[in-house]
């Protein structure tokens, strides 16, 4: 029995509903509100206020219960067995931005790393911030190779939205003129250090098809007036970003888009609200609203709107659609194609090389750059010279050089005064680069609903059956070999390749489970990210991805979100939704 006690139906009716307040939800909220729509933003997790709720922001290493936020091992075992697989997510500096696995379980047929944060702002607080455009090399690949289905959009469709997103959120980077990695609208690039400068010169000299650039990252290096008006400032190179940034120096929902949305007075942001169902009206052939379970009381309330944006993160939007069954959609909302929950993709990583660097003892850097170097894709670029016969698509590398600190002394022999003197000295330089590889869409890489395992809210959970295949495995060999080759070519010592065990999801780039396509029979969403069978619902988180490319996906999610929001408002005005 529903208890529709939260005010009148009128009070629960909006122009638009956005499900989720992470990176894409925040952006959808901003654009819809700025375009005049009364918008309800529903977030399953707790409220987080920019600045005020970044509780660890100013803490020193000695202010935590254990050094620099180390989480006791029994707590890790009890709460974070899966969340800790990245090696960096579980730490008291930012544990409050990640779910506890015992509260939000899922089931793995094969290892799948699903790293999540349930609170206002979602993973926009903890994301990697690397921001790269796609090119038509990516958008055309499926069609050319007969893989999956064709993207219903091309670079030209997204280019103006990339412009808009980069300009508004701020991306620091360097223009390179590469066809496979289009330049954007950049704030000044961050610096290379001394070793990286030499790596760049030597690798580019030896391999003309390879380029080393500085990471393109959503940090402000020269804020615009518009950004400063929102209270955002220049990056202070703390590299403690995952604690949350009171300077608003990197793009997050909390520090940017939700503030802008709030300034319009059109936004109602409601935390602790788990959307469990999209309400579909078969007579109108429209979604009329959503059903919400209160995270504390479990009370059910319905909210209504003309247009609904699902931005709950890829697998949670997919969960929501699978969970929204009706006579019209017995297999899940919008799932006429049976593609919902399929084609799970990530970027496979954890493979590359490291090396020791002699010399440069008199060089150092000031600050901790929250960014690295980037080596854009140089395989299978469409010409004979870069063609690989052992795998399709390609990969890029992220990495960097730095001087070791006191941590190196643990592994060395010796103690006493000499050890103590060494604590104050910067150690030798080391360098490392790791690949991010494109993963192809495979129909049988899928998530399904699992009613046998319930989460803390009493809701069914997801079951994963996802793996990388021969194309990815072949690519990984080349990712390691090319990394070793470049570090050796640069003259560095003791080059050590690595290929660490990888579980899909470890890249935290899960995507593709409600893909876009031209044909409703083989895809869930159309070219505007509208559900084919119910066009007043847009899905603009990573669900819509028809292929993965090899670059970090968030900028493309945001460009697609902005494009969809514009489309929705225009369509509403025309009475088309």
């Amino acid at each position, binding site marked *: 029995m529903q208890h529709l006690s939260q005010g009148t139906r009128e009070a629960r009716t909006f122009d638009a509903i956005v499900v989720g307040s992470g990176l894409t939800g925040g952006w959808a909220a901003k654009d819809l509100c700025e375009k005049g729509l009364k918008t309800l933003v529903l977030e399953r997790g707790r409220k987080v206020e920019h600045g005020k709720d970044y509780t660890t922001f*100013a803490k*020193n*290493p*000695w202010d935590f*219960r*254990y*050094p*620099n936020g*180390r989480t*006791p*091992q*029994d707590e890790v*075992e009890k709460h974070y067995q899966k969340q800790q697989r990245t090696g960096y997510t579980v730490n008291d500096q930012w544990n409050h931005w990640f779910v506890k696995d015992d509260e939000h379980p899922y089931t793995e047929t094969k290892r799948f790393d699903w790293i999540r944060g349930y609170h206002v702002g979602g993973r926009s607080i903890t994301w990697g911030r690397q921001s790269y455009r796609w090119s038509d090399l990516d958008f055309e690949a499926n069609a050319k190779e007969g893989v999956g289905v064709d993207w219903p959009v091309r670079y030209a469709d997204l280019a103006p939205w990339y412009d808009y997103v980069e300009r508004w959120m701020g991306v620091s980077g360097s223009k390179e003129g590469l066809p496979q990695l289009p330049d954007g609208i950049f704030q000044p690039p*961050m*610096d*290379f*250090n*001394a070793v*990286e*400068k030499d790596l760049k010169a030597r690798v580019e000299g030896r391999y003309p098809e390879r380029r080393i650039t500085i990471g393109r990252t959503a940090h402000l*290096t020269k804020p615009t007036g518009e950004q400063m008006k929102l209270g955002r400032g*220049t*990056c*202070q*190179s*703390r*590299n*403690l970003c995952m604690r949350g940034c009171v300077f608003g120096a990197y793009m997050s929902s909390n520090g940017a888009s939700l503030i802008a949305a709030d300034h319009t007075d059109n936004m109602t942001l409601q935390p602790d609200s788990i959307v469990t169902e999209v309400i579909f009206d078969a007579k109108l052939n429209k979604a009329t609203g959503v059903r919400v379970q209160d995270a504390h009381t479990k009370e059910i309330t319905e909210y209504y709107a003309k247009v609904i944006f699902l931005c709950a993160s890829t697998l949670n939007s997919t969960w929501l659609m699978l969970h929204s069954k009706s006579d019209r959609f017995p297999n899940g909302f919008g799932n006429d194609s049976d593609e919902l929950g399929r084609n799970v993709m990530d970027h496979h990583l954890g493979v590359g090389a490291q090396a020791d660097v002699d010399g440069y*003892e*008199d*060089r*150092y*850097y*000031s*600050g*901790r*750059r929250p960014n690295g170097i980037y080596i854009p894709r140089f395989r299978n670029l469409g010409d004979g010279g870069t063609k690989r016969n052992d795998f399709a698509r390609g990969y890029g590398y992220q990495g960097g050089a730095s*001087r070791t*600190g*006191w941590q190196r*002394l*643990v*592994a*060395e*022999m*010796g*103690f*006493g*005064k000499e*050890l*103590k003197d060494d*604590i*104050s*000295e*910067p*150690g030798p330089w080391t360098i490392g680069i790791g690949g991010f590889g494109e993963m192809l869409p495979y129909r049988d890489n899928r998530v399904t609903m699992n009613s046998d395992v319930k989460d803390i809210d009493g809701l069914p959970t997801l079951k994963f059956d996802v793996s990388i295949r021969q194309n990815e495995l072949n690519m990984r060999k080349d990712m390691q070999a090319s990394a070793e080759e470049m570090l050796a070519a640069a003259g560095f010592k003791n080059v050590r390749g690595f290929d660490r065990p990888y579980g899909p999801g470890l890249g935290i780039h899960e995507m593709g489970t409600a893909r876009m396509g031209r044909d409703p029979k083989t895809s869930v969403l159309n070219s505007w990210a509208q559900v084919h069978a119910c066009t007043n619902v847009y899905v603009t988180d990573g669900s819509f991805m028809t292929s993965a490319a090899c670059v970090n996906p968030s900028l493309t999610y945001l460009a697609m979100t902005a494009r969809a929001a514009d489309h929705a408002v225009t369509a509403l005005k025309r009475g088309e939704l």
Partner: protein
Amino acid sequence: MMDRRELLHRASMLLGGTISAGASAGILAGCVATPWVDGPTPVGATGNFLTPMEMTAITSMADHIIPKTDTPGALDVGVPAFIDRMLAGYYLQRERDVMRSGLARINADAQALRGVSFLQLTSDEQVELMKRYDREQYDYTRANATTQPPPAPHFFRLVKELTILGFCSSEAGATKLMSYNQTPGPYRGDVPLSEIGKVSAL
């Protein structure tokens, strides 16, 4: 070099000045009991895993690993109590067992060497034994670098790692021996070391 009176004083200080007559007698007598358990072993964030006698041995080793010079040393920043707290509240039983049996072993080794406890060795003798353990832990850790799942650490690796960690993440360690700046300002990528001076603590 620390004489026994100073050692006792320090042990007493880090136990809150309430070292028992029995414990001090034990320290002076060399506390040869094996296994070396003579106190309470509750586990919690406030520490109290190590026994008073184990604490004196840890104190002695931490002092040798990072001595006080013209800058603070491990004992000045409370490393022994830190190690106790880590063992009690951070680690699991495996590391506690490693430490407990390691501390029993150093005493047994001292007995075999000189017929006295570790604490009764001269400072130089303690250092000699520690050098042996250092070599052992280095070889053991290297030999097991790729073993999966990682085996339990060597006890001296644990002692050394915890001493360095406790010291370098203390306020004095980070700010007096290193350059500590939580908010450095805009990044500059290529700067002469002479301009920065010391290594960054973070």
